[in-house]
């Protein structure tokens, strides 16, 4: 039995080594040159607006970026939207210098023409989009729904789930389904809802509220560590903080002690 188990592990590792690499698409693996950062899709505007023109960004769901790092993708740094995926990478020794750098509230968004105005009307929504169980937005959303269900009764959560029509792989795909009009309601990060006229925010009772915390980390196998460190420090510059605040992020409320010795 043990032999079978180890065989399976080896085969999995072999798959790991090429599957995410295939998923990387256009990312080249040139050993020198531009810094390459993998970032949660909800950070797109926050990072593309940064001055560092010497940086290539690849935006995806944090769970996808985690797989890419595990598969040896040529990333120098990552910025993920939750602690769980970041910690998994850190515990595996794949990233270091982990630091929380921003937060964003998880909000309920509906189409502007939707009759829904209160959180408890959510089961009336025609079509609801969630993130998958792996993507941080999907995890935060499920925590909100769990709290609401234990407070209002399981019928609330069940009512919501029967209205779910699709699970999307990152926060931007969730929003896209809402913007196209193909769904009526979805949970989004607050910055993704800002300045989106077709959408309207429905308040979530504070007892159920969730806040996403963004973590940045340096990839231990990265080829451009000094550049990556400089990029990580630049996230703290006042103008970057101001830019994020303008987009609807806020600064991290709590410090986080990096686990393990450096």
């Amino acid at each position, binding site marked *: 039995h043990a032999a079978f188990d180890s065989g*399976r592990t080896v085969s999995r590792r072999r*798959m790991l080594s090429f599957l995410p690499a295939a998923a990387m698409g256009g990312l080249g693996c040139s050993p020198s040159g531009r810094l390459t950062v993998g970032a949660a899709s909800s950070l797109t505007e926050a990072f593309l607006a940064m001055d560092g023109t010497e940086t290539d960004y690849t935006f995806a769901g944090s769970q996808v970026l985690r797989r890419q790092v595990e598969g040896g993708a040529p990333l120098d740094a990552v910025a993920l939207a939750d602690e769980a995926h970041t910690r998994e990478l850190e515990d595996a020794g794949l990233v270091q210098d982990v630091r929380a750098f921003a937060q964003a509230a998880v909000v309920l968004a509906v189409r502007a023409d939707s009759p829904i105005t209160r959180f408890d009307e959510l089961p009336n929504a025609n079509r609801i989009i969630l993130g998958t169980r792996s993507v941080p937005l999907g995890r935060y959303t499920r925590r909100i729904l769990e709290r609401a269900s234990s407070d209002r009764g399981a019928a609330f959560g069940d009512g919501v789930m029967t209205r779910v029509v*699709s*699970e999307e792989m990152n926060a931007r795909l969730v929003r896209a389904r809402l913007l196209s009009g193909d769904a009526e309601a979805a949970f989004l990060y607050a910055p993704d809802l800002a300045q989106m006229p077709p959408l309207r925010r429905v308040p979530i009772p504070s007892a159920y509220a969730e806040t996403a915390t963004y973590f940045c980390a340096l990839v231990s196998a990265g080829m451009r560590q000094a550049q990556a460190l400089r990029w990580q420090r630049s996230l703290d510059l006042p103008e970057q903080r101001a830019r994020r605040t303008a987009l609807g992020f806020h600064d991290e409320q709590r410090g986080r002690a990096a686990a393990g010795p450096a």
Partner: protein
Amino acid sequence: MKLLRRLAALLLVSLLLVPLALLAGSVGPADVASALADERALRALGVSLRTALASLLLILVLGTPLALWLSRATGRTARVVEACVDLPVLLPPAVAGVALLSAFGARGPWVALFGSDASLAFTSAAVILAQVFVGSPFYVRSATEAFRTVDAESLLVARSLGAGPWRAFREVGLPATAPALAAGATLSLARALGEFGATLIFAGSLMGRTQTLPLAIYAALEDDLGLAVALSLLLTLTALALLACVRLLVRSA
């Protein structure tokens, strides 16, 4: 020169076969069994079987009359239609998904006509439409070619002996073309079963409703690579089993 030619052939054949061999080798029967025990796999298999068979039925029912007409008509309209039928083969499935979403999604004419409750996006119907869209050209093309080879005279003889047009087709045309029809149907079914991009865009991905086996593989890549590999093997086996069924059915008919 001869050596180069052989090397080129060997390279291409290995590219085609080695990854499949590795896939088959990296998963044992036990992995497939444990994948089958996973709720996600079973429900994806159910969705895949239901939708692919429904798509095949639609393709046969709608495609056969079309192919008959295309094989008999001589006008310019028929040639234009014939070219259009082939279009989905050339289009990337992602384009098909976006096109279907524009037609049947919230902003399309379908919803404008029938109201937002009639939107097909994210439904089983969306999965089937995507599969018919990408799968039908294979059947229609080979059926059209096959019907062209049927001797018009033998059909006329059958009709002069008192058979109606449908009976003449069934008893004279169909037996002669059955192998080609089966080949076309097999290709269409395989394409429907493997449909991924258009389905993901147009039908979304929800376990038990629109998540077919290819979409389940994609979803499993996120958190359970072993499951993704086992599902891939399961999809391969399902395709082989369905194709064998189609062949058997035609042979017995």
